[in-house]
């Protein structure tokens, strides 16, 4: 067990006899903002819940910051902030919320909290229950960032945020990514996370089918806009778009092109088997 991040080994978990995860392996290192992508029902929320001890594995091990989350040790909970998609905001004022809950997090930074609230344009003196859904979410995001927990788990954080708030969220999160912290964001709103999440993890049918940093994506995949729909073995993915076709191929020229997250996700899902070979470490790659 290391105290450097998250280490999941041979983990099995399911809600019924049919397992959702079977022998799942995943390692996440401190200092990254991971993006967790997957279709509906792929197991993204369940994975987040396993990581913070809200669900217990049936087999295998899960180590988070050197501890086993299923026992929910207080010392670990002090270092985890989980903002679920269906969150709870008590009917108390923001000031009372801070008084009651901030002391639970030993590294809570009240100045940073006030700064985040200002940036999210949230005023004090109001009860959280009087906030709109988006305002409540921004308040809890600001609180979560201010806790300075080493593990921040965000499930669909931009759902319900207006356009300026999404931009503020990206800015705040980019600033919050520190050396000793893991931010793991599960999302369908990939466009909101563009240029923010890196590495990318793709979960499909209970398995991690992709986990790569963006520079590896750029190194291995070539994305181009073409006028005519191409065909042939070299094409991994095509999608009709305004002005032509987005075409993804294996990068053989070494030219750097940028794949947006939606294209990357669709390419990986459409090429489950080939993608593993493409991203194999140098020397192991099939010719």
């Amino acid at each position, binding site marked *: 067990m290391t105290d450097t991040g998250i280490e999941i080994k041979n983990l099995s978990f399911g809600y019924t006899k049919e397992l959702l995860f079977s022998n799942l392996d995943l390692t996440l290192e401190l200092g990254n903002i991971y993006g967790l992508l997957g279709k509906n029902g792929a197991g993204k929320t369940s994975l987040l819940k396993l990581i913070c*001890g809200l669900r217990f594995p049936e087999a295998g091990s899960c180590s988070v910051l050197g501890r086993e989350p299923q026992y929910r*040790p207080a010392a670990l909970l002090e270092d985890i902030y989980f903002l679920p998609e269906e969150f709870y905001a008590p009917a108390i004022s923001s000031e009372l919320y801070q008084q009651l809950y901030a002391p639970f997090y030993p590294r809570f930074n009240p100045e940073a909290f006030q700064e985040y609230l200002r940036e999210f344009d949230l005023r004090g003196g109001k009860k959280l229950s009087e906030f709109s859904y988006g305002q409540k979410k921004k308040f809890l995001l600001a609180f979560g960032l201010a806790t300075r927990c080493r593990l921040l788990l965000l499930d669909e954080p931009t759902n319900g945020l207006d356009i300026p708030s999404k931009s503020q969220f990206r800015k705040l999160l980019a600033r919050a990514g520190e050396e000793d912290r893991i931010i793991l964001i599960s999302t369908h709103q990939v466009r909101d996370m563009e240029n923010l999440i890196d590495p990318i993890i793709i979960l499909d049918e209970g398995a991690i089918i992709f986990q790569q940093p963006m520079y590896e994506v750029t190194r291995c995949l070539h994305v181009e806009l073409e006028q005519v729909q191409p065909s042939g073995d070299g094409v991994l993915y095509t999608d009709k778009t305004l002005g032509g076709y987005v075409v993804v191929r294996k990068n053989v020229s070494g030219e750097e092109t940028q794949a947006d997250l939606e294209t990357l996700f669709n390419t990986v899902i459409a090429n489950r088997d080939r993608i593993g070979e493409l991203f194999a470490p140098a020397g192991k790659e099939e010719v």
Partner: protein
Amino acid sequence: MRDFSIRRLGLLLRRDFSAGYKSVFIAMAAVGGFVILVSVLSALGRELGSIHFQLYFPLLFIGGFIATSLSFKELYLNGQGVFYLTLPGSSLEKFLSKLLVTSLGYALGSLFFYTAVSSAAEGINRVIFGFGHAFFNPFTRRVLLAVTVYVVTQAVFLVGSVYFRKLAFIKTNLYLWLFGIVLTIVVAVTAWVIFRDYAVGPRIGLEPYMQELGRSGELEAVLRPMAEKFLQVAKVLFWGAAAPVCWIISYLRLRETEA
């Protein structure tokens, strides 16, 4: 203990006490109004016996059992369960906080509240009528015994609160009734099997048996000490074991709750 901190327990206590304070104030206002009304009406009818213990008794037991049944409600509410379970505090600290709030916290709080309200009611009686009921004394043996019995019995409702997702108070009561019925049947069947020779129709008439035991001296020598021993064991189980067993069950259940 590695996973226990007085600081965190204090924070949880502060949180649990402040949660739902509005509802508590509303309940206190309603109960206070009711006590004053009953006290004044009773004085008006010149029924001047002691009424306050009779009024305090349901406030302590029924009110306390309902409050206890609601204590872990947040575990099973959408969003709240995740919030509570990921709140930095060990299962032991979270359990102890709820236990202290609903047992000693509720008992002492209700005692203090009822003493204040009943004093106000009797003050009003004396101002209006020039007489009133005896003041409520929270330090009598009867009141203190009731508080102790409450602290022991509420542990059962704490188990219900952590086990049942919905309607914990009603379900706990139903289970207690069911337990009572099963126990009665077991005792009745056992008695029938042992004493069926003394059956007179559907009844068991033990008088001839007791007379026989009395004549032989067995009643004094064997049965009475045995009954006293049984009573002692029952007392020890009630005062010493019932509540701790319920606390352990509640704590273990809280530890294994998933969201």
